[in-house]
């Protein structure tokens, strides 16, 4: 299953016998849909949902005119892609706001979906928006769950409320009362993970719902969930009438077909997705990106966005200026290294492309960057700006000061000279373009 043998390519193979352009015929569409079905199943879209979806797309595609600019394969992918986006709904990352605060948000989901982590992320986001959220610990079952929420709250810089292991219904109502009294405008209830078929625990959630009347009931779902996603989502929705869904662990390389399944069976919007382990790693749900992912086309948009973030444009402009004046010093060399260091995150991001984890990324050795940094920082300002003055005794001193060896210092200086030479040879125009990141290496 090569990632780069994309769905489009595979489909083109089907259409390769097609000589004359024109309308897509029923037979060709059928063959193509078989490929699409496999793609959806490999992405963990529920088989019934996939079947339904294929039917809809087939109806739509038959008789569709092939656009001049596209190959038949691309054309089909385009139709499928559009339909996926349509099905997964528009971006709707807004949380309900209660007319009379506090707004109450109840989190729910299976064990290990990532509820507690997500509570912290939501609280952090709300805080950044100028709100005053309160995290309430209603998971009295899992060992140390309360402690975990407490740490999560600290990391997010928000307040935390607990009542030990008394009844979760009571904790919820006391938490909301506490928020009212103390002027918190949003309450986030962290509930215990539970199976959707555990009637007793589902009743507990219904009790909380009855008691505190949450404005949002958000189902947290692991993006790696397989076929069972429909059963889980349907059960939670039937019992609680959820208001939305949060997908977690989208920083993995899963294709996340669960998103489509859940939307198809509940009709409820997917509001956010968790994209990392840090408290700020939360973003609105983008149906278009999800559609690309499900089709195995990778989340290329996010990738490009992050790449642009990693390359600091201002820094690059400055560098360009310096190079033009041929004033590229060791300090600049260091800055450049740090930029590459930031691109290390990029390697992680590339791994988000489904299947890309199998590819060996030429990873940048972060330790090496730290050593180089130490070497350069052990030099005097004069030495950094004019490396020519660094002779043997200086090298010895620098090596000692940075805890490295003379060989390493030599190596660094050699690399510096090489890059300087290389950059001189590049003409300014080309270099500028390259540095501005307009021409990405992939």
């Amino acid at each position, binding site marked *: 299953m090569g990632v780069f043998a994309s769905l489009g390519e595979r489909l083109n193979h089907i259409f390769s016998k097609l000589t004359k352009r024109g309308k897509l015929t029923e037979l060709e569409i059928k063959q193509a849909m078989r490929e699409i079905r496999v793609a959806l199943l490999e992405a963990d879209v529920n088989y019934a949902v996939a079947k339904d979806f294929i039917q809809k797309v087939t109806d739509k595609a038959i008789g569709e005119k092939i656009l001049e600019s596209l190959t038949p394969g691309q054309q089909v992918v385009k139709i499928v892609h559009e339909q996926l986006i349509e099905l997964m709904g528009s971006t709707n990352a807004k949380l309900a706001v209660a007319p009379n605060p506090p707004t109450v948000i109840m989190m729910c989901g299976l*064990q290990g979906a*990532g509820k507690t982590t997500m509570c912290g992320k939501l609280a952090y986001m709300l805080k950044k928006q100028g709100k005053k959220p309160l995290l309430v610990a209603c998971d009295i079952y899992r060992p*140390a*769950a309360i*402690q975990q929420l407490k740490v999560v709250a600290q990391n997010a810089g928000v307040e935390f409320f607990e009542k030990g292991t008394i009844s979760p219904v009571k904790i919820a109502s006391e938490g909301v009362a506490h928020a009212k009294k103390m002027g918190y405008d949003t309450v986030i209830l962290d509930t215990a993970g539970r199976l959707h078929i555990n009637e007793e625990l589902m009743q507990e959630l219904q009790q909380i719902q009855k008691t505190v009347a949450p404005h949002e009931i958000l189902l947290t779902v*692991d993006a790696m969930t397989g*076929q069972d996603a429909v059963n889980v989502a349907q059960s939670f929705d039937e019992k609680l009438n959820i208001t939305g869904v949060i997908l977690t*662990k989208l920083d*993995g390389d899963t294709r996340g077909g669960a998103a489509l399944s859940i939307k198809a069976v509940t009709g409820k919007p997917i509001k956010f997705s968790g994209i990392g382990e840090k408290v700020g790693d939360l973003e609105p749900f983008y149906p278009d990106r999800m559609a690309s992912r499900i089709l195995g086309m990778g989340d290329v948009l996010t990738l490009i966005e992050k790449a642009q973030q990693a390359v600091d444009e201002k820094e690059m402009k400055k560098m360009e200026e310096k190079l033009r004046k041929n004033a590229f010093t060791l300090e600049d060399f260091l800055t450049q290294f740090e930029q590459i260091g930031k691109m290390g995150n990029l390697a992680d991001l590339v791994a988000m492309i489904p299947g890309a984890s*199998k590819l060996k990324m030429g990873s940048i050795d972060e330790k090496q960057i730290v050593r180089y940094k130490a070497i350069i920082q052990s030099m005097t300002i004069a030495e950094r700006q004019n490396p020519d003055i660094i002779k043997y005794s200086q090298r010895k001193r620098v090596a000692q000061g940075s805890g490295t060896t003379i060989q390493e210092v030599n190596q660094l200086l050699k690399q510096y000279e090489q890059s300087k030479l290389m950059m001189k040879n590049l003409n300014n125009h080309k270099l500028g373009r390259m540095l501005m990141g307009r021409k990405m290496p992939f």
Partner: protein
Amino acid sequence: MGFFSKILEGLKKTKQAFQNKIKYIFTKNEIDANFYEELEAILLSSDVGHTATDRILEELKQQVKQKKLKNAEETKNVLKDIMVSLLEENELAPFTYPCILMVVGVNGVGKTTTIGKLAAQFTKQKKNVVIAAGDTFRAAASEQLAVWADRSKVKIVKNSAGADAGAVVFDAIQSAKAKQADVVIVDTAGRLHNKSNLMEELKKIDRIIQREYPQASYHKLIVLDATTGQNALEQVEVFDEAIGLTDIVITKLDGTAKGGVLLSLAAEYTLPVRAVGVGEGVEDLIPFSAKDFVDSIF
């Protein structure tokens, strides 16, 4: 009997509601395209995956032809046998003592809970257990593990949050040697398998164990969540490449997920399944039985 009898007590009714729709298929008589299509639906909806499903059905069709089977009822056992033999290809190495178990997996699959159950079960067999709280990353992970350790009165070696996991494992091994413990269980931080730096940390722990405790039999267990779909394949592949896995533990089989991805895995890897998690109680970790597992799908 059978390992699902226990969970079925509590969750029988609700769980059955999900299963009823597939029960009737073998009661129909004819073996036709429709029949195979319905079988395919069952396998796919159990997360067996597209490739493995195709393989299983191909094999079934062949055997139906060979054995000249005429009605659907007869195919049921043939199909089950195909699936069971696929799962039983890989044999489990029994525990010999002293042993060390490293438990790995992505976030939220139930590593800590599994370790708690393992510790309790070893203790019950009068084994002396040391737990290494190697998850120094997730908030309150070692506290969660400490609660489990306390329940079965087992020694736990931990360090403050953010500390080096390798150091914790090192200390635990020294402690186990000094106390002549039978079993060391190493918890590790949940990590998405595409985070290369975290995988490096795991390799380091692996090296420490091999260097410091060569006399112990060494098991590397990957914990998989039964709810997970085809991504489990990628998980196994990447962890296996990093440290070389020996066993699988599959958790959360008490829900409505079938964990059919084990069949996808069996088709591609030679990893045996050691145990199955079916609940939150200490005793809810039971030895894997391919037969019971396949029965639960149909």
